């Protein structure tokens, strides 16, 4: 089973067209193995992206170097997944 320990979901809000374009570049960097949960639309609309733990620092460096603001939407994806499983299993107990 694929697990997601340490994967974070970042919420990035592009503040202008330049940042929009820089985030688009990020989207196209296949080596980061990013998973865009909520894709790029327009300025001010949030972009949510799952970032694997092994590229987290590189992605953060990229965003910070470009002055792109972001916040952490999900701190550790696996913790939420484990909770989801627990709730589902609990619901099956008569």
């Amino acid at each position, binding site marked *: 089973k694929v697990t997601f320990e340490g994967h974070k979901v970042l919420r990035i809000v592009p503040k202008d067209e330049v940042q929009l374009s820089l985030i688009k570049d990020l989207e196209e960097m296949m080596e980061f193995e990013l998973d865009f949960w909520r*894709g790029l639309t327009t300025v001010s609309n949030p972009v949510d992206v799952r970032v694997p733990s092994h590229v987290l620092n590189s992605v953060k460096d990229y965003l910070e170097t470009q002055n792109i603001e972001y916040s952490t939407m999900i701190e550790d994806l696996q913790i939420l997944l484990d909770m989801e499983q627990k709730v589902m299993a609990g*619901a099956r107990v008569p």
Partner: protein
Amino acid sequence: QPQNTDSFDFANYHTLEEIYSFQDLLVAENPNFVSKIVIGQSYEGRPLNVLKFSTGGTNRPAIWIDTGIHSREWVTQASGLWFAKKIVTDYGTDPTLTAILSQLDIFLEIATNPDGYAFTHSSNRMWRKTRKPNPGSSCVGVDPNRNWDAGFGEPGASSSPCSETYRGPSANSESEVKSIVDFVKSHANIKAFISIHSYSQMLMYPYGYKTTPTNDAAELHKVAQKAVSDLTSLYGTKYTYGSIIDTIYQASGGSIDWTYNQGIKYSYTFELRDTGQYGFLLPATQIIPTAQETWLALMTIMDHTLKNPY
């Protein structure tokens, strides 16, 4: 396993087997109203089940609703289950739904991408695509919402099998898509087609693959406005609405662009609720509120379809 659909737990997420069992129970409980049609098989051989809600007649004009074409969007399949039960409980008591069903049939496909959904339970909760291997690539699956014959291959989808938006080798290459295409064409009397996704709180109409507005854009916009207003009235959930390309981004090969081009005027797609905290992992406690608010918007679209025959 619940013995009847009244004891089914709509406030939790369910496996594919539980969804299939629910469908069979609902049909068994309502033999003169609900039937199950198998419109095809998924790549891995699972049945593509569609529930038909009909009060009679032959090939009546119909409304299509699908959920779960992107398998990881679990709140959509869960909402589909709730909608199915809602149709059964409200028919005969809710005058608007009763009027709709007196003239129109409703088709509901709850698990539109069953292989993907099973895979989200067994192996990778974050899986979005189908599960068909791609020759020459180690990456599996096609984005079934980039595989329709509407602007297929144009910008707004990927040609890379490893991308989450991989369009596939050709339009309708995925049996999950082709089965709906064949069904819609053979039925030939579908008047509204509503495809449900999550998450970013949007209600959209064609087009996604081009900027040209549809001939019906003004009417579609007005209906979307009313639908969103009704949705928001329940819990205050804020939605945006408009054409796909204006509201979200360019997306080619999408379902409702194809259905609109087939002459199905009331073609809409939803992106359901997002709390800004959970994404695809919306807590189960939010399933029912999400389904309830979405139902209000669905009713608006279905009622408009009833009152504006074409």
